[in-house]
């Protein structure tokens, strides 16, 4: 137990150092926009399809479940638009997007950096006068923290459209009614609530996966272990952090 606490404390310290070096490199302008753009394409553009697909079906199933539940209670599908809109914008959009990205992007970051680490490529960067944090971590931090809210916003929109398809075609809710429910109950404050969370989930994913990649050791097996634990830790931190972040944001009046 004591050892576990020591290890956690050490990790927290190293993460703080990683953040500091990333921030210092960023503020001093010691980063290459070209690398960040490549990473944005890698993280954002190529994740769009899977994020879109998950959110489309999430919106559809939300409309389906809420619609039929309300039919049981009220004999008609009331408030489907507001259930779909609020759940997606405040919770499911950002959370599902970040869970997908933790699996897709987080894993690949850890695997890539981890492989570079065990094959001494990270040491090589250093001997060639390049800070590994500046060259590898900073572009990924920038890309993740920009792309995460954008992807979450797109997930919100696609999810609400998915909900609309089911509401309109299956539950026979008039399109005007659905959209009015969405727009009456979801305001910009709720959108901000979700996107701010997405931003912090992005930070969780990129921090965990870079940290695990930079610290992994023990050959191919070590890379495998680091990758698994990066994904698991990211997901747990996202879901646990979601509660506290939501509570905090509501307490300061964002998305109450």
């Amino acid at each position, binding site marked *: 137990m004591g050892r576990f606490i020591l290890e956690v404390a050490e990790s927290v310290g190293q993460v703080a150092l990683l953040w500091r070096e990333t921030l210092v490199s960023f503020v001093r302008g010691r980063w290459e926009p070209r690398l960040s753009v490549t990473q944005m394409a890698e993280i954002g553009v190529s994740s769009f399809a899977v994020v879109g697909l998950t959110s489309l079906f999430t919106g559809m199933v939300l409309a389906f479940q809420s619609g039929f539940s309300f039919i049981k209670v009220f004999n008609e599908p009331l408030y489907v638009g507001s259930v779909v809109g609020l759940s997606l914008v405040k919770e499911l959009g950002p959370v599902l997007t970040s869970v997908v990205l933790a699996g897709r992007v987080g894993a690949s970051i850890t695997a890539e950096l981890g492989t*570079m680490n065990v*094959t*001494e*490529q990270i*040491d*090589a*960067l*250093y*001997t*060639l*006068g*390049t800070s590994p944090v500046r060259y590898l971590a900073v572009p990924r931090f920038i890309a993740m923290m920009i792309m995460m809210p954008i992807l979450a916003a797109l997930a919100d929109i696609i999810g609400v459209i998915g909900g609309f398809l089911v509401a309109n075609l299956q539950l026979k809710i008039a399109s005007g009614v659905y959209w009015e429910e969405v727009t009456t109950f979801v305001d910009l404050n709720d959108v901000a609530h979700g996107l701010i969370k997405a931003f912090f989930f992005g930070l969780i994913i990129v921090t965990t996966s870079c940290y695990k990649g930079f610290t992994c050791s023990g050959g191919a097996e070590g890379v495998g272990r680091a990758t698994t634990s990066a994904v698991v830790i990211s997901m747990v931190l996202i879901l646990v952090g979601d509660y506290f972040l939501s509570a905090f944001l509501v307490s300061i009046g964002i998305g109450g």
Partner: protein
Amino acid sequence: MISLQGLEKTFGLNRVLRGLDLEIKEGETITIMGGSGAGKSVILKHIVGLMKPDKGRITVKDVDITSLKGDALNEIQKQFGYLFQGGALFDSLTVGENIAFGLHNLRPDLARHWKDVVAEKLGLVGLKPEIAALKPAELSGGMKKRVALARAIAYEPSYILYDEPTTGLDPIMSDVINELILGLQKSLGVTSIVVTHDMTSAFKISNRIAMLYQGKIVALGTSQEIRHSTDPLVKQFITGSSRGPIQMQVRAIE
């Protein structure tokens, strides 16, 4: 001159360096030999600042680099070329980009003509300029080592550190690498520090040989002196016998 004084380094329970002293003269090729896991690579990583000692001092041309960081350390690193054991070429870049990688930061004056530098260094390691466009995955083991060597010398360092340059290569390719090391020595006049357990290679390329055992240098002399040494540790190592004072532990932890 590079001087290592009383270096100590412990990983977990494993005391790798236990008060190591060594002086490396300008212009020489010195080989540090020792068993697998004895800490040979650890010494190189300390010299270049990739690792910090728990105790002791490292000076390069009378500058104490032990606690240097950031840009100050970067300045020192410009003087070192490092050939990693597996080459450590960047998979995502071409051979040419790999070789030119350090120029931008370490030698901006050469960076403008990077293509010429790449062709020249490839020539020095006996490779054709056409391979600059290939990716490292398309190269054989021996070619990777040579490209890695070209990368290490691209910015014209005054010290070259070789981490097991011949390990994993066939005897002929090993000798090609030995010749390259000797050739670079002559043409560039650099100081070379080689760690290896390949004795053929060590005797061929070294001016002096040091033997690392249990975290200290236990023998140091010219190639001839080491070859004819009566020290039982040295004798056992260069003849490659499992019988003698060196008992390989199953685990390197005592």
